[in-house]
Each structure stands twice: as structure tokens, then as C-alpha cells.
């Protein structure tokens, strides 16, 4: 240890620690610009100059090493003069008007100008005249604003080892850029964003940044997009390192069905993945699937949280993803949980909506078993008609009954024989019951459920299958892969159709359609449909399947207030899942309509937390399963990184898959998985980087 004195304050600091850090850590502000806590000292900006007693002249405190007995002054008139001159010089090549800069208000240089107050008007000002570079994905460069602090160069070279950004010189103007001014992608940039993070000015900026959410969420959009906020970059990193158990444990910290999600999650994370701006989005779902498939459970089986029994009893009604999740976490909080399911097995829509060729039933059983083993009592074939009566036996009731009733459009012919509903059809098909379809099928609807219906009908032996929907091809709500795979299987897809009437005397003979010219919504969100004149046409069929939405299978007789789309009314979808009856809560599809498994999981987690609090717990259902991950910030060079393509899963050909319910998507193969995980930009690494320390953060300046 060394004892040093800075402006009269005695500090005990480690010998050789740089004096600027000593001062900042001790709450003494010294202006600085090129210095950054996580980067090696450079000493080029001269803002942090100090005087050391017994040494001649000024020296930069960022490069000064603390030695015992050092007496340091940071605010002498000579220093202030030097600092002013340095900043005055620095600003001669920087645009004078701050107000047009996107970094206005968040700029470190701006705060320095306010603090130091340099002289103006004495020196020659210049515009560097660089063309702002906007052709790169994710990152904007405007070298006119650069003051050459060199932080980005050090971040790119020392911190990341990517070595893309370097000092360059054009005529007599030094600037930061890639060799030969190549585009970042061609220079093998890894788009980690470290340069953006450390840039003190508006020179290197994020191209797209959601400013409405917290910074961590905007920087790592996949994690934010996931309704359950699964730590995507963390488990991808584990997968890349071949640590599949650890990866699965990361996923399990947020969701109890990693495997099922690996097969069928609607992966909204991938839509937000920043990698898509560079080439293609990460195949996040398939990486999850690979991790879950290869998980031996070493980090979580028999581990994780289990609080002591509280003696409180909870009944969860409906064993879909929301109900199973809520039951699992409520049990972990120590409550006695009973899960009542109307159908013969658990899983809800995962088992009775999603066809088994997409999600094998063993997986549901396997993951439900974990929940049962945690101590949740499961009662199947038990339909609850009057939830309020459960309160006699239970301290709280959670309604997670989903939406199992198909919607029949009120149109001509909709009551004819041969018209069936999506939910009934898929449920019967799943249970191996008679579905009542004929040979020529028309599915009305364009979402994923409609495709599940069409493709299930195909596998049940239907000869000709048409799918028609109101939306145009490019705005159909089904996943793109669902649409193309269905077409490969010989299903005819008819986008932009109005359903005029279902024809037939007593049994369906077909459907009349017209082409949609335009389909928009007015300001009241009402659909406005313009039809193409004379486009009326007819498709023959003996069966029509409505796939235009599902609703909860519940009536007012259950004693709960119902709202739009027959949903159970709760006080607040996210924050307060209390129904109209005290002690009864609701979560999942039953409160917000048909969404996704991952949404249901999150809704179930929220409900579990709320109910735990209601029963006297602290509501903290979080748990730590995965080992500590020390993400290496030194990501190194990777030639061709930007151009690496998304690895595609292995999918059986249409002929092989279309007549059976066997799983046909086998995920990403062993030899590709590491490369796919290696494509991740690792946006989360940026959050490791220390933030700026501005004079306003220091108390001595606050008082002033």
C-alpha cells in the first residue's frame, strides 16, 4: 500500500495504481477523456494533468503510478490553463454546435466543456469533412465528431482482440477507421458494440437502439424480447463451449419446459436478434433445443429452490403451460399445490393443440414429470365448473384453463354438417378420436393453428387441402417455415380471400371466396376490406375447418367476470392477476387470448409470484441453477464472421413426413451447433463495460 495525498486528502491506495483511478475511486474528480476504466492508459488528451510535488511540470494522472508519499495537486492555475488549452485545441476539429448531435445530453465531451469552460474564438476551427458512414449494420460512424481519444481503438484491440478499428491518416487528418476504409463486415468486425459503448462523443453510435426501454434491455434485445427474459446470450455461450448442462440450467432458471420450447417456441427473440442486421438472426430456438436435448440435468436435478412447507393450499385449474409453470413455482415456494386438468393428460395446448409431429408427447410427459416430482399433485380428467367452491378447501385458486373452444364465424353455412372447429379437430386428432373430416378440406384462417389443422388433415389422409385467409401472403401471421412446409406437403394456400359463404344444402359442398383488393384498419382498429369486383370463385370441399381463433371454454355460470373474447377479467394482465372473486387468480391464454407457450409460462410465473405474496411469501420465485459464467470479453478475430450464415435444421422431405405424425424437424446437427452458437454477437458483453464518470456524479461538484 502507498499513502498519497491528492488536493490535501490523504488516501491509502495500492502501490502503482494509477493516480486518476485513485482519485476517482476516492470521490475526487479529475477531468478525463481518453481514459477509460477498462482500457489501458493512453495520456493523449491531457485533461487529467496533475502536478506532483518535487516533480517538474504537469503529468497525466492516468499514466502516473501511485508511490508512497506522493503529494498531488489537481487544481492549480497552471493546470487549469493547460487543461483549458488542451480542450480548446481538441475542440478546433469538432463541430461547434452540440444541439444537432444525437449524443446531446449524453456526451462526455459536452460535460467536459461545461466543467472546464475553454476559451473560444482564438483558434482556427475546421470541419474535417468526413462523410458519415451509414452503410454498416448496427453501427454508425461520424468521424467529424471524433476527438481521437482512441478509446474505441483500445476497446477493439485490447479489450476484444478484434483489431478492426485503427488509427488511419488521410492527408494530414488522423481518424479512426478500418484498413482501406473497408466496411465493418468486410473488415471482420464482430459487432460487439464495445466501440459504441466507450465512445465519449457522438462519433460511433448505435444505428438502432430502442430508447424507450432500459439500456440493458435495448443492448440485449433477445433477452428483453423473450417474455420470460431467458438469458439468451449466456446459454448460447455455454452451448458454444459445449457446456450443454450449464446451458440448460440457464434456461431452466426462467422456464420449466426447455425442451418443449426448443421444439415449438415462437422465438420472438429471433425477431429482435441483432445478428439479423449483419446476416441472419441466430437460430436461438434450435440452440435451446440442442442444449435441452443434451442436458443430463447435473445442475438442476434435485437442486434448485424448495422452500419449507407453508401449510397453504393452492389449486391450479388447467394443466397447460401457464398452469404447470405456476404450480411448479408455487410448490417451490413451499405451498401445497393441486393441479386439476379436465383432459386425460397434462400439457394443455402443448398436448391437444400443437400436433405431435411438431412436439412429441413424450417430451411433455418428461417435463411434466419434473413438476410432479417437485411435489405438485396432478388430478387429470377433473373439470372444475365452479372455481369459487374450491376456496372452501384451498387458500388460493388459479384459473389457467386456456382457450379450448374454437370460434365459429357467423356466416352463411357455418352451421352445416361438415363444418368443424380448430380446437375440436386438433384435440380429437391428438387423442386419436374420430375427427369427422372428409377428403376435401378447406381450412379458413392463416395463423399457425390453421396450418396445424391443414397439416394434421393431410396426415389423417385427406386428399385435397386448401387453406384460405384474409391477410395477404406477406402479412400472414403464421411462421414462414409453416407456410412453406405446408406448401411442400401439397397444401394449397390462398391468401387475401374473403369468405363469402359456405355452400351446401345440409352438408358442406364448398366455400365461395372473393379476392381482397386491400385490407386495412381504420383509426378505431376496425377492419376495412375492399374486394376485387367480379372475383367471386368457388372451391369444392366436403369439410370446412374454422381456424379463426379460440376462446376460453367458460361461461358466466362459473361465477367469474368475463370480458372480451370470453376471457376471465383480471385487474391487470401483467401486474395483478386477481379476478372478480377474492382468492381466485387467472393467468395465461384465458386472460389475454391465444398467444404462445412462452407467454403462458411468463404469465404463470407472474401469477405464482403474486399468489405467493398473497399467501404470505416474499414472491421471489427466482432461482440460480447455472454455474457462474465468466464471459471472456476478449473475443478475438474471426475471419468472415459477418458473413456466416444461419445453420439450418435437418428437416425430412415432404414425401417422408406428410403421411405420419413422426417428428420431422431434427434440429441443428452436432457438427453445426457450435458454429451456430459461435455466430452470436454476444451483445451482453457490452454490459460488462464500465460507464462514464462525469463531474456531476461527484459530491464535491454537486454541492457547488
Amino acid at each position: 500500500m502507498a499513502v498519497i495525498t491528492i488536493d490535501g486528502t490523504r488516501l491509502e491506495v495500492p502501490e502503482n495504481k494509477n493516480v486518476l483511478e485513485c482519485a476517482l475511486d476516492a470521490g475526487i474528480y479529475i477531468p478525463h477523456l481518453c481514459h477509460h476504466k477498462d482500457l489501458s492508459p493512453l495520456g493523449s488528451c491531457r485533461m487529467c494533468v496533475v502536478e506532483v510535488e518535487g516533480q517538474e511540470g504537469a503529468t497525466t494522472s492516468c499514466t502516473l503510478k501511485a508511490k508512497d508519499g506522493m503529494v498531488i495537486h489537481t487544481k492549480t492555475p497552471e493546470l487549469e490553463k493547460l487543461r483549458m488549452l488542451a480542450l480548446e485545441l481538441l475542440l478546433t476539429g469538432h463541430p461547434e454546435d452540440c444541439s444537432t448531435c444525437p449524443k446531446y445530453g449524453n456526451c462526455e465531451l459536452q460535460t467536459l466543456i461545461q466543467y472546464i469552460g475553454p476559451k473560444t474564438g482564438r483558434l482556427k476551427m475546421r470541419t474535417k469533412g468526413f462523410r458519415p458512414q451509414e452503410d454498416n449494420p448496427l453501427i454508425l460512424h461520424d468521424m467529424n465528431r471524433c476527438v481521437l481519444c482512441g478509446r474505441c481503438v483500445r476497446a477493439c484491440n485490447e479489450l476484444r482482440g478484434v483489431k478492426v478499428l485503427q488509427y488511419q491518416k488521410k492527408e494530414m487528418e488522423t481518424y479512426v477507421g478500418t484498413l482501406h476504409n473497408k466496411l465493418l463486415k468486410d473488415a471482420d468486425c464482430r459487432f460487439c458494440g464495445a466501440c459504441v459503448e466507450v465512445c465519449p462523443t457522438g462519433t460511433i453510435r448505435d444505428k438502432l437502439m430502442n430508447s424507450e426501454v432500459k439500456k440493458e434491455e435495448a443492448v440485449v434485445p433477445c433477452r428483453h424480447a423473450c417474455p420470460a427474459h431467458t438469458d439468451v446470450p449466456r446459454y448460447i455461450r455455454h452451448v458454444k463451449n459445449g457446456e450443454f448442462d450449464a446451458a440448460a440450467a440457464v434456461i431452466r432458471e426462467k422456464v420449466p419446459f426447455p425442451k418443449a420450447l426448443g421444439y415449438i417456441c415462437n422465438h420472438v427473440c429471433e425477431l429482435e436478434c441483432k445478428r439479423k442486421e449483419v446476416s441472419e438472426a441466430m437460430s436461438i430456438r434450435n440452440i435451446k433445443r440442442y442444449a435441452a436435448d443434451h442436458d443430463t440435468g447435473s445442475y438442476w436435478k434435485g437442486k434448485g429452490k424448495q422452500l419449507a412447507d407453508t401449510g397453504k393450499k393452492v389449486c391450479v385449474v388447467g394443466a397447460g403451460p401457464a398452469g404447470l409453470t405456476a404450480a411448479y413455482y408455487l410448490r417451490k415456494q413451499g405451498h401445497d399445490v393441486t393441479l386439476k386438468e379436465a383432459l386425460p393428460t397434462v400439457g394443455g395446448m402443448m398436448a391437444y393443440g400443437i400436433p405431435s409431429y411438431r412436439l412429441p408427447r413424450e417430451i411433455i410427459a418428461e417435463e411434466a414429470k419434473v413438476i410432479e416430482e417437485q411435489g405438485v399433485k396432478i388430478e387429470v380428467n377433473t373439470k372444475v365448473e365452479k372455481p369459487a367452491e374450491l376456496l372452501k378447501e384451498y387458500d388460493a385458486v388459479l384459473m389457467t384453463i386456456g382457450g379450448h373452444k374454437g370460434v365459429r364465424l357467423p356466416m352463411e353455412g357455418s352451421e352445416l354438417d361438415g363444418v368443424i372447429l380448430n380446437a375440436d379437430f386438433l384435440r380429437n386428432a391428438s387423442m386419436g378420436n374420430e375427427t369427422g373430416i372428409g377428403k376435401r378440406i378447406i381450412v379458413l384462417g392463416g395463423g399457425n393453428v390453421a396450418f396445424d389443422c391443414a397439416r394434421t388433415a393431410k396426415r389423417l389422409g385427406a386428399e385435397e387441402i386448401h387453406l384460405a385467409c384474409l391477410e395477404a401472403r406477406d402479412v400472414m401471421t403464421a411462421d414462414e417455415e409453416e407456410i412453406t412446409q405446408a406448401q411442400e406437403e401439397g397444401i394449397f394456400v390462398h391468401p387475401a380471400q374473403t369468405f363469402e359463404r359456405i355452400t351446401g344444402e345440409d352438408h358442406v359442398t364448398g366455400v365461395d371466396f372473393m379476392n381482397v383488393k386491400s385490407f386495412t384498419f381504420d383509426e378505431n382498429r376496425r377492419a376495412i376490406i375492399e374486394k376485387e369486383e367480379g372475383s367471386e370463385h368457388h372451391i369444392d370441399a366436403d369439410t370446412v375447418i374454422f381456424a379463426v381463433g379460440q376462446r376460453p371454454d367458460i361461461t358466466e355460470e362459473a361465477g367469474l367476470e368475463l370480458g372480451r373474447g370470453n376471457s376471465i377479467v383480471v385487474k391487470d394482465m401483467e401486474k395483478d392477476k386477481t379476478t372478480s372473486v377474492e382468492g381466485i387468480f387467472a393467468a395465461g391464454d384465458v386472460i389475454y387470448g391465444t398467444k404462445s407457450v412462452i407467454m403462458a409460462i411468463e404469465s404463470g410465473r407472474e401469477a405464482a409470484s403474486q399468489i405467493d405474496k398473497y399467501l404470505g411469501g416474499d414472491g421471489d420465485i427466482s432461482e440460480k441453477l447455472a454455474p457462474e459464467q465468466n464471459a471472456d470479453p476478449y473475443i478475438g478475430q474471426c475471419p468472415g464472421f459477418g458473413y456466416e450464415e444461419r445453420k439450418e435444421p435437418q428437416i425430412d422431405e415432404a414425401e417422408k413426413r406428410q403421411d405420419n405424425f413422426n417428428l420431422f424437424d431434427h434440429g441443428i446437427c452436432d457438427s453445426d451447433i457450435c458454429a451456430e452458437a459461435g455466430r452470436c454477437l454476444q451483445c451482453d458483453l457490452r454490459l460488462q463495460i464500465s460507464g462514464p464518470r462525469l463531474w456531476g456524479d461527484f459530491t464535491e461538484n454537486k454541492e457547488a
Partner: protein
Amino acid sequence: MSALECAMKLSREEVLEQIKTSGLKEYGLEKELLSERLVRAVEESKEEEKELGVVAALNNADTTGVLLEVLLADPQKVMEGIAIAAYALGTEKKVLYLPEYAADKEAAVKEAAEQAGVEVIVGLVNVRACKGSALLHIVTAADLADTFAGCCEDGVYVSVNGGELKKVSAETKVSELTEDAAGAKGFCIGYEYYGPEAAEMTLEEVHPDNGVIRVLKASDCIVSETEKALLASRKQSCGKCVFCREGLLQLQYMQKETTEGRGKAEFLDLTKEIGEAMTYSTPCTMGQVSSKIALSAVEKFESEFTAHIKKKKCPAGVCFSEEVIYIDPKLCQGCGECADVCPKDCIEGKAKYIHMIDEFDCDQCGKCIEACDAGAIIKTSGKVPKLPNRLTKVGRFKR
């Protein structure tokens, strides 16, 4: 037996001891004992946890490259010097930097470098990256080799007025090197300007650090020379440090403005302020020494600067000739085109009146001459006819 072979016969300690007893000094700007410099490199390498090494180069600020002759005349000697220093330090890291303007000389030293295991890099020495290395001037390396070959002679390398580079005693007076010294206006020695009194100073006192002595004649304009030297430095600077990058730009800009008749009184103080700050605010010779060019120029030849700025006169007759531009009152049509194009706004007149140029503000850019269709605007160093002293209608002016 070569110098390196002689050294290798001794132990590392013995080599260090011999360097110490030889009293050999670093040839670069810091004239410390080489033995001390080597010891300091060892300490620095430990403290910074950086690899110990030997780096030889010219001063970054050296834009002339005159001393490269020492290397080119005997590349093997310099490489051996580097190798001896590395042997003394017990390191394998040996680097020689060549300035970018001498990139074509790389081939000439390649063979010797490979033999001695010296890496040759073209570019400026990055003093931050070289922490932990003993930074030696190329001449130091040559002298070190000579020391071990037993043929080292004390002395200073000089080339006067572009003449041949020779090694002379440090006691030599400047006047002994050239007959032109008598009656000279001053000298440019190393990176500094000196007045005529330097003729009687010894090389020890004037430090021609880059080996260059130039005798300044009456026809050499100090401002213009300074501007050119600063421009060369700007071109050579890596531009990473604020004071070097922006300071050199401002210094060069002010001298340029001055040579073009746009100098301002405050330029002198500003040159001093920036130059002084640069000298101790930059980590390498590029900024430390380049600023001295400007500082010594304004210090030793202040009157020349003042003449440029206040009287718009260049005593050497280099910057702006004595020419003036005037509007011939007999030819002027009073169209006003000249006033419109004048960047200094120094042409007075209105429509149909004879226009007049305010000579004080005019910097003789000549734009008005091009703009005048009547050919009434004339640049001359000869006699100027009588001109109107107030606004006069076209055709009304009488001599």
C-alpha cells in the same frame, strides 16, 4: 572480429560494465549515459510488465533523415550495436524503425537486419508500445558497435547546407564548419533557430540533433521556413495526441496566415502559448521538438514576424512582393464587380463612381483583377499614378 563477436566473448555483466566505463551517451535528445538508459529499461519493463527489448530509430520528429546515412553507410554496424545492447539486457527483442519516407531503404538494411535478428518496422516509433524497451538513436547503436570494435570516436554528425555528413568534434564551432557563417542572418541547427551569435557556439552547445545545420541568408524568410518545417512535421505526426496533432496544425496555420499577409498581432503570443505547452505535453519528440521550431523562430526573429504582421512586409522579400493593386481611375466604369468579389471587403465604391482599394486591408489575392471587364485593375511594383481619395463620379477625376 566483428564488434558483436567481441561483445559475445564477454559475459552480459562484463558488456554492461564496459558500456559504463566507455561513458557512451545516448545520441538522441536525452543525452544520458547509455548504461543508465539500459538499466532504466530493465526497471521499466518490470514495472510495466512489458517485454524487455532494444528499439533503435531516428527521432520521430526528424523529417530530414540526414542521419540515416550512418545506417546506410554500414547497416551491419548499426545492427550489431542493437544486438550488443540486446545481449547486455539479455533479451531477444530487437527492433529498428525506419521513417516512412525511407521505406525504400528497407531492402538495403534487410540482410544485415536478418543476420543480427533485428526486426525492421517502417513508421513512427510508438513510444507507448515501446515501454519496457531501451530506445536508442541509430547513431547510438553505431557508436556502441564502434566501442566494442575499439574504434569509437567522440563527435557530432553534421551536414552543413545539405553538404556531406561528417563526424566532427563537439568542440567545433559553427563558424569553423562553413565560411558562410560570417555575416549570416542566423542558423537553423537541429530543430531550432539561432541568431547570428550561434556562429561562435560549439556543436556541444547547439545540439544539431538531426545532423542538420543550415545557414540562413538575408533572403531566407524565417516565417516561411518555419511554416514549411511545421507542415513537414504535421505530415509526419501520427496524430494520436491532442497537443501534437492540433498544436502543430494551429502553429502551422498561424505561420501560413502570416506569410500570406493575414497575420494577427496575437499570433506571436499564441504561438508561444501553444508551443510551450506542446513541448512538455507530448510523449515523443514529434511534439516536443517540432514545437521548438516555432518557439525559437518567434523568439529569435520576432521582428521578422512583426514586420509580416504589422507592416505586411517580408524582410527577406519572399512572402509578398512589394506589388500593389490599384484601380486606374481613367478606366474604371463603376460597375462594382470588383467590390462584389473582394474577400476582404476592402474595395470602396458605388455604381457609376470610381472604385478604390483600401491598400491596408488588401492582401493582393487578385480576384478583383479577374472580375474587372474594363481591365482597370492593375497589379504593379512600379509607380502608382495619383488616385482619388474620395468617391468620385466616373469621368470626373482630374489629376
